[in-house]
């Protein structure tokens, strides 16, 4: 590897998991060994939680209940808007209500395997253990999960598993779980335990004497900067899929909080691991602003196919059965249409690359419900997927009951994120990272219905238990605006905003974002090559230079200025994109969502290189113009044996 793009630093390791006891006892052992904070002392301590999605909302609510003074920040008008709300399919839990052989160990095993052996065993096992508590908690909060006629909870199956362990609330599971957390959070706000900062965006982390002690935030309505201090800072700001411009993320989803924390010293782990979701509505035009996901649950009953012949432009219904290629069922008979996301996405890309794609530009495959409608009847299909079908019809103007849906993969989730240890603490003491914003539980590929599980596990159960070990040393000495670290952080943010507003160039922020996104999709998307990644890195550096010399940002900063907000986020995406490409370039193996064309089996499946790459790549930021430093965390597999994933 060329040493000009990065340098290698000391290895890093998680020292918090008690590996001296069997894996099934580690979580309870960790909780037992960790120090506690007595209720009287909790009142003296403040915790900042940034983000109000499943992870941030549940964490803020739980910490508020526990008696800490919590300050909660979010950029939208209400905590209920956080993008967890858009998760459709469901949430996994090892309840084994179906009596189909499920167990904590099986969920653990499936998740490690599904993550292509790039996740930490300890974290994943804990996730599987905690999963059952999440369902109990959500039901008690009034989350209206789907039920059977006997009044008990219903389950369905999801990609990458052979059991039915997914709990769901029609196609709006994320929404309902988020509202559960949101209501718990609002209850704590009403009780005065959580201070609320709506439409407020974190723009920097304040690190004092090596500890995370506060944040600089901007009130998006008045434009005013403010500083907030605490004994610990929790980031729950979600993923960075919007680096691709087009993704299934919300328009406002951004990487600024984690990226600026990264620049303050938090390591960024596995940034190249991005999940491309196979079932999204294809792109329809230049002006396209986002991509819409169709829940993976559709693959339970929908069959994916393309015409056998290239360039077959007949209407789908005119193509006879024997001229169709149900390529997932053909290539992966054991899992069929329910193979994990990375595999389904790449298979779709392959058939489109062969010229057999359907719809505009040949970038789409059919997801066909004709067989399901015949087998189950239209009312049953409507009951299961009605809202998704309506959404599809609304967006495309086509009726999915009459003609097959067209789908294409789209960026959906980022497995990478800030590096955290077993306690979910980053490399900056006092800064914890939860939910999609951290890297911890999904390895190189996330299984369906696991994101909701992880977000809520982190927020309700893990963080509130582990943060006490850190806070047991608190309260920490008081910090205020007079501290040099605080002044330096405020000055940095001020300078950046002034600079953005003073360039007054000729290109809009959105045009930079679109260009960056297209570049990332082409070279750091479903298939990556050495050559392509190098090309991308060169171009990203040019884009960054052009951005800082030619961007046009209007208005003032002392007002509601969405253009300015976007500009700051895109500036961070550009820097993050470069690190993603470097990470992707250095990992010369294929694993999960990271597919290097140079590393594949003769059948075209991902080929891992466990010898050389069974580690977490944790990147340390270095000032602009110098190469980032790679710290390796070796992954140890004691319970799940490394093997090539097979879904055939």
């Amino acid at each position, binding site marked *: 590897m060329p040493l000009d793009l990065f340098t290698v630093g000391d290895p890093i390791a998680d020292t918090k998991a008690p590996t001296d006891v069997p894996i099934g006892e580690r979580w309870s052992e960790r909780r037992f060994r960790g120090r506690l904070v007595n209720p009287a002392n909790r009142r003296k301590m403040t915790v900042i939680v940034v983000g109000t999605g499943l992870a941030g909302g549940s964490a803020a609510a739980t910490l508020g209940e526990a008696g800490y003074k919590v300050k909660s920040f979010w950029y939208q008008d209400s905590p209920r808007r956080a993008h967890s709300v858009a998760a459709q399919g469901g949430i996994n839990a090892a309840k084994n209500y179906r009596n189909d052989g499920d167990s904590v160990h099986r969920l653990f095993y499936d998740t490690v395997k599904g993550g292509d052996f790039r996740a930490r065993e300890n974290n994943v096992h804990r996730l599987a253990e905690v999963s059952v508590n999440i369902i109990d908690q959500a039901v008690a909060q009034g989350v209206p999960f789907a039920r059977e006629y006997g009044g008990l909870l219903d389950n369905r199956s999801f990609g990458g598993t052979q059991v039915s362990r997914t709990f769901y609330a029609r196609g709006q599971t994320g929404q309902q779980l988020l509202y559960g957390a949101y209501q718990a959070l609002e209850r704590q706000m009403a009780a005065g335990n959580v201070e609320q900062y709506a439409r407020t965006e974190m723009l920097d982390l304040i690190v004092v004497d090596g500890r995370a002690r506060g944040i600089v935030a901007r009130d998006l309505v008045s434009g005013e900067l403010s500083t*907030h201090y605490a004994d610990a800072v929790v980031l729950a700001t979600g993923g960075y899929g919007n680096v691709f411009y087009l993704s299934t993320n919300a328009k406002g989803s951004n990487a600024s909080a984690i990226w600026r924390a990264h620049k303050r010293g938090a390591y960024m782990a596995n940034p190249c691991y991005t999940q491309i979701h196979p079932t999204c509505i294809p792109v329809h035009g230049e002006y396209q602003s986002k991509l819409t996901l169709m829940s993976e649950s559709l693959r339970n009953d929908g069959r994916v196919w393309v015409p056998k012949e290239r360039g077959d432009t007949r209407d789908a219904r005119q193509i006879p059965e024997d001229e169709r290629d149900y390529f997932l069922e053909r290539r992966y008979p054991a899992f069929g249409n329910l193979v994990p996301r990375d595999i389904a996405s790449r298979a779709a890309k392959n058939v489109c690359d062969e010229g057999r794609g359907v719809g505009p530009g040949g970038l789409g495959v059919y997801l066909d419900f004709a067989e399901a409608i015949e087998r189950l009847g239209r009312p049953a299909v409507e009951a299961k997927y009605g809202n998704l079908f309506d959404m599809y019809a609304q967006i495309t103007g086509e009726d999915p009951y009459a003609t097959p849906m067209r789908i294409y993969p789209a960026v959906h989730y980022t497995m990478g994120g800030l590096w955290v240890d077993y306690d979910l603490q980053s490399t900056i003491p006092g800064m914890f990272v939860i939910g999609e914003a951290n890297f911890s539980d999904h390895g190189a590929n996330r299984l369906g219905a696991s994101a909701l599980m992880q977000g809520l596990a982190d927020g309700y159960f893990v963080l509130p238990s582990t943060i006490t070990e850190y806070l047991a040393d608190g309260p920490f000495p008081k910090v205020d605006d007079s501290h040099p670290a605080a002044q330096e952080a405020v000055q940095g943010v001020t300078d950046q905003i002034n600079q953005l507003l003073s360039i007054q160039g000729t290109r809009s922020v959105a045009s930079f974002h679109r260009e960056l996104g297209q570049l990332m999709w082409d070279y750091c998307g479903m298939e990556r090559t050495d050559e392509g990644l190098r090309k991308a890195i060169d171009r990203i550096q040019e884009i960054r230079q052009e951005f800082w010399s030619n961007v046009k940002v209007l208005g003032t900063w002392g007002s509601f200025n969405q253009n300015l907000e976007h500009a700051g986020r895109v500036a961070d995406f550009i820097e993050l994109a470069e690190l993603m490409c470097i990470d992707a370039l250095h990992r010369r193996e294929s694993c999960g969502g990271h597919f290097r064309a140079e590393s594949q089996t003769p059948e075209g499946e991902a080929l891992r290189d466990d010898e050389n790459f069974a580690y977490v790549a944790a990147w340390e930021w270095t000032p602009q113009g110098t190469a980032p430093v790679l710290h390796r965390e070796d992954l140890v597999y004691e319970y799940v044996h490394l093997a090539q994933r097979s879904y055939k």
Partner: protein
Amino acid sequence: MTVTTQSGQRRAPKAAKTSSVFKKVVMAVSGIILVLYLIAHMIGNLKAFAGRDEFNHYSDWLRTLGNPALPGSTALWIIRLVLLAAVAAHIWAAVSLWRQAKRARPHGYVTKKANAQSYASRTMRWGGVIIAAFVIWHLLDLTWGAVNSEGHDGSPFDRMLASFQNPVSVAFYAIAVILVGMHLRHGIWSATQTLGQSNRRREVTVNYAATAIATVLTLGFLLTPFSILFGLID
């Protein structure tokens, strides 16, 4: 640029006012009283078909209702007071909700279109005002005779004939009665909703019932004046 440490709450909630739902309950309950009265009133009106004596006799009976247990027109006056209270409460609730709506949206839309609003629901407020004006005229005309050519001294039947042999008067009366009908159509449905008695299962029934009651009352009230106008009663 100033750096501030802000507090969370942007705006303190205003002091509690009388619950908006309470106002609607007042509206619903007073409305129900008035509907019951209208049913009785309509039945009384239809006595006109039984002839002058029967009608006047009915009118006298109303004034001596409850005799001899109650002296004079006590019972009638009790009814009148209840009605007056119901009307006052109904108007108070309406005005109060109207003002609340005004405060809740002081600046209207440049363009606003209705999706669901029926003509009946849209005319509840101005319709109500017109109905109130009509009721006053109606009392002056037929109860007190102040604006009636037969005057206060004529018999109730004569006052009725005098009024309804005049096409203008019948037209005014008819318009008002149709307004009342629409008011009832929405009002009856609205009252079941306000009193928490409507649900998906009952919705169709409630809607039919509201339409049926409104229609029967409207037709019942129109029957007498038109029969007089066309000389079927004299």
